[in-house]
């Protein structure tokens, strides 16, 4: 009897779900791991108030044929084994092939008042809304950069929020040029039109950014800079994000090579989803921010590849190429205005976990020495928020990833199923 290949997929968003569908189609034994309590990742996050999109429901159905490990976090990786922790315990899971579909997180840049309760990411408030966060009648400003702002604004409206405006830092010229090119990607054009319709009464301003969030113990108002000057708007929530950053932590821990060039690390993958490490594949955002279409097609490719079917995988390549071209165009449109790099003032907190201000960091010099002296990046978020912000602002990148990949119980780090001591 031949051994069935065990394929482990980390991430149950669109990429991971597509990979699961493809892999199970070959009869492989598949396990899917996600730290979230439910499947869908961010784009297809379960919404307590609304039914899921049909595409999401269909994709999630693929989990019926896998070992579905919801609420499980990968803490460490050695050899071809992952150490995984859940609320109730920890265990090792081995694999023959691994598919990394760990998605992306928002790029959040420090500015005066950004630590006030009421200031969230743009995708962040959308995620909270889907979890049931009460937004009915609340005044919300959406700001930052990227198409995520429109999707977020529409979603927040659907949850009852009063969206006062969407403030995009890119210029009107950049945005309209991009919109004019959307005919090349019909599905996107339809999406964009639908969004604009749903948001018809919501002001969409370009070349605008938030320079400060105001309030004592929570957000009360924001100051917006636009070509017309500075405006102060009273609001309950500021949903602000500057795009997405790949979650490359696990890939780095496994030794996967990263791409040279982009500001924020992305995993080096070939068109068939292979990373530089044998038997490790990557799909979706971690190979470069590409959106839903890239995630789905690359997940499919990786699933087939992991199961040993490179022919079916290769047949997907033209679709992948088209999806990636769109992603590249997107990135160019929404490159950040350098003024955003200078929003933080000396007393603005840069490292939220350790309360390290810009002045603290400046006093300590740059690079690793400054981080050692201030403990910037050494808190619970393990440098995910401040590290990406500092990278965007042009500071030296923090050192590579260490274990534990996420905060984990000491009990988990001490657990061993096979090791014996001398």
């Amino acid at each position: 009897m031949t051994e069935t290949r065990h394929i482990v997929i980390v991430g149950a968003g669109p990429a991971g779900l597509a990979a699961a569908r493809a892999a199970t189609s070959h009869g492989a034994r598949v396990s899917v791991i996600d730290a979230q309590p439910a499947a869908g990742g961010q784009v297809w996050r379960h919404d307590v108030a609304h039914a899921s999109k049909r595409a999401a429901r269909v994709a999630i159905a693929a989990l019926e044929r896998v070992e579905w490990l919801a609420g499980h976090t990968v803490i460490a990786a050695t050899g071809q084994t992952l150490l995984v922790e859940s609320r109730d315990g920890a265990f090792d899971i081995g694999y023959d092939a691994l598919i990394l579909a760990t998605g992306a997180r928002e790029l959040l840049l420090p500015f005066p008042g950004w630590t006030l309760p009421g200031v969230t990411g743009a995708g962040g408030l959308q995620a909270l809304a889907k979890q049931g966060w009460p937004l009915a009648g609340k005044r919300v400003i959406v700001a930052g950069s990227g198409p995520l702002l429109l999707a977020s604004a529409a979603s927040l409206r659907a949850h009852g929020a009063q969206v006062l405006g969407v403030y995009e830092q890119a210029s009107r010229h950049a945005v309209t040029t991009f919109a004019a090119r959307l005919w090349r990607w019909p599905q996107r054009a339809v999406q964009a039109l639908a969004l604009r319709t749903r948001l018809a009464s919501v002001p969409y301003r370009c070349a605008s950014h938030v320079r400060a969030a105001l309030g004592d113990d929570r957000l009360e108002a924001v100051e917006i800079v636009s070509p017309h000057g500075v405006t102060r708007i009273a609001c309950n929530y500021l949903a602000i994000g500057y795009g997405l950053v790949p979650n490359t932590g696990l890939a780095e821990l496994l030794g996967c090579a990263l791409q040279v060039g982009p500001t924020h690390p992305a995993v080096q993958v070939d068109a068939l989803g292979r990373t530089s490490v044998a038997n490790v594949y990557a799909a979706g955002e971690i190979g470069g921010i590409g959106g839903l279409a890239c995630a789905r097609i690359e997940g499919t490719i990786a699933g087939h590849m992991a199961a040993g079917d490179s022919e079916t995988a290769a047949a997907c390549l033209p679709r992948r190429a088209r999806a990636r071209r769109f992603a590249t165009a997107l990135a160019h449109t929404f490159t950040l205005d350098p003024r955003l790099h200078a929003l933080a003032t000396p007393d603005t907190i840069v490292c939220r976990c350790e309360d390290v201000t810009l002045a603290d960091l400046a006093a300590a010099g740059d690079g690793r020495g400054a981080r050692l002296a201030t403990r910037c990046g050494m808190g619970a978020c393990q440098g995910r928020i401040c590290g990406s912000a500092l990278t965007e602002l042009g500071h030296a990148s923090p050192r590579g990833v260490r274990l534990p990949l996420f905060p984990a119980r000491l009990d988990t780090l001490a657990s061993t199923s096979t090791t014996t001591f001398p």
Partner: protein
Amino acid sequence: MSAPKSIRLSVNGQPVEVPSGTSVAVAVAQATSVFRRSRHGQPRAPLCGMGMCFECRVNIDGRAHVRACMTPARDGMQVRSDD
């Protein structure tokens, strides 16, 4: 047996009721806007909504540092925030 329509838990000793399927973060938001205090005592609340920022950490049933945005609310939970 169908799932309960709403969940009853307590946040900082205060009874809170939330719809089934919502997160502990949502329950906490009913009671307070402060999830935790930073190193220098500043009030903090969820930022990223997806488990990356660790600003939503609360104590649930005696367990410290649980990310509220990643945890479904359950009947009878005793949640304490840092306010």
